[in-house]
């Protein structure tokens, strides 16, 4: 509309606008079209439909149900598994990344990078098989532990329980931590530790005053990304649990497949929207911190 008005009012400026539009937007159209149609449109529609009742009238009942039982427990469990798996993986992952990046040869670092890339993407049935084979009732590690007097299955442990899932999630969370935290370590310059030493700082001083404050934002950012990854993991949880552990992604999957029926047809969409909001609370700060630290991480 505005476009047309300007063109009528001032033809030269209109043409200028058109050329500037072409220059500024046209080459980006293929990308914008694909992202718009295959990504923004489904998400917008998801949000829109989540506000519709069965009769297609506006309602917030879907959201009311989404925060009640059994979905409330699903959210609590999902948030808990996201937080715990991130907390357990963040520190060891950061230390591993530190030693690999500062002490490893370039060949080793490259190998680890490839392996982390693959491992961070494992999940679902293959990952479940690996852990059944190692820590299942008949698993190799279970047998070894039993031999040494620790019967894993004496209590309530199972791979499909919360603790079991947590152990399995470590398998992709740890490599993910190594991947996202390594760039921060690489950008710690040797000059800084040398300068600190020249000014009379010892190793501890250096870490307390320089190293940790510099790495801390990236550490928090990595933690947030790990939380989002653990929170929204579907495939692995689906392969390991048998309906004993309510998790939001599984509940959505069940509603989507029609395995579970709900009185409200659009309940699954509301659950999805709430998931997006929770995930955004973690990922957006992650991106913001990344952006800030990228400034000094550039060489």
């Amino acid at each position, binding site marked *: 509309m505005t476009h047309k008005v300007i063109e009528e009012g001032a033809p030269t400026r209109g043409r200028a606008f058109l050329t500037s539009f072409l220059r500024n937007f046209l080459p980006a159209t293929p990308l914008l079209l694909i992202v718009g149609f295959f990504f923004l449109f489904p998400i917008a529609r998801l949000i829109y439909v989540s506000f519709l009742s069965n009769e297609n009238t506006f309602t917030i009942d879907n959201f009311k149900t989404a925060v009640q039982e059994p979905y409330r427990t699903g959210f609590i469990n999902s948030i808990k598994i996201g937080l715990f798996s991130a907390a357990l993986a963040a520190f060891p992952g950061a230390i591993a990344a530190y030693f690999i990046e500062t002490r490893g040869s370039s060949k080793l670092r490259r190998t680890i990078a490839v392996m982390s890339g693959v491992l961070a993407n494992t999940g679902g049935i293959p990952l479940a098989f690996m852990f059944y084979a190692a820590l299942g009732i008949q698993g190799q590690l279970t047998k070894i532990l039993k031999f040494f007097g620790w019967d894993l299955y004496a209590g309530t442990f199972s791979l499909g329980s919360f603790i079991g899932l947590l152990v399995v999630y470590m398998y992709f969370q740890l490599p993910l931590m190594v991947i996202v935290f390594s760039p921060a370590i690489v950008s710690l310059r040797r000059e800084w530790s040398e300068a600190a030493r020249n000014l009379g700082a010892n190793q501890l001083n250096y870490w307390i005053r320089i190293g940790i404050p510099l790495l801390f934002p990236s550490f928090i950012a990595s933690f947030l990304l790990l939380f989002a990854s653990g929170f929204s993991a579907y495939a692995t949880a689906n392969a390991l649990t048998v309906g004993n552990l309510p998790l939001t992604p599984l509940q959505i999957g069940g509603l989507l497949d029609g395995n579970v029926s709900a009185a409200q047809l659009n309940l699954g969409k509301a659950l999805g929207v709430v998931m*997006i909001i929770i995930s955004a609370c973690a990922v957006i700060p992650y991106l913001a911190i990344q952006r800030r630290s990228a400034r000094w991480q550039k060489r």
Partner: protein
Amino acid sequence: MKIKLQPPLAITLLILGFFVFVPMISAFEYSIRTPLTGGYGWTHYIWAVTEEDFLHYILRSMWLAGVTVLITLFVLVPTLTWLHLSNSKVRGIIDGLSLLPLVIPVVAFAVGAQISFPEFVQNTVLELPFLYFVLALPYAYRALDIGLSAIPLKTITEAARSSGADWLRTITSVIVPVIRGAVMATIALTFALSLGEYTLTVLLHWDTFPTWVTYVAQENILGAIAISMMSLILPFLILTIITLFVPERSTQGRK
């Protein structure tokens, strides 16, 4: 070449290695068991490979991943080249847009996809490469962005253009070879992601190699373990080959 490992590094690698390889080797041990004779053998691998569906699904996953890679390169390389050259105002928007898929959990994305697309899109398996493209976008975009930032793009392009190359030729035979490290990294991660994608595929009721394993598990559990092992080794091989081919400097951008 002498490999020297310092103690803290050695301990780190030992612990990580233990955690990574114990489950993997345990599963491998299962996959080579032959319950009939009580010994070991490749029975389940042979069973899996000779299974009719094996080739069908592995080829299907491969070509879907291939199409995803093509879409990624055809769309992203020209767009990013242009964004870098023109300093367009939309760059900020597109940068942000490219990261947005990280925010959306795949399950939620799957629900959105299921209720949005018209029939003709939902009825063709070709919707998957476009959706995989979206999932890989944050990584692919960043890899190419870093690659393009690390080269004197403007100089190279002007040189190519003034030597008489058109845009197509400039991109295909000048820019892409110069940023081949970033291009290879993009290919590797897009291919690996598409090959292993499970959640979106299964929720949209498509069958690919990763979802096929679920069916096999119901009839032949040891065979399914063998297939799982292969599905783990495959991306390892692809990524290792690609990183071996790529010179080190170019994969990490300017340091």
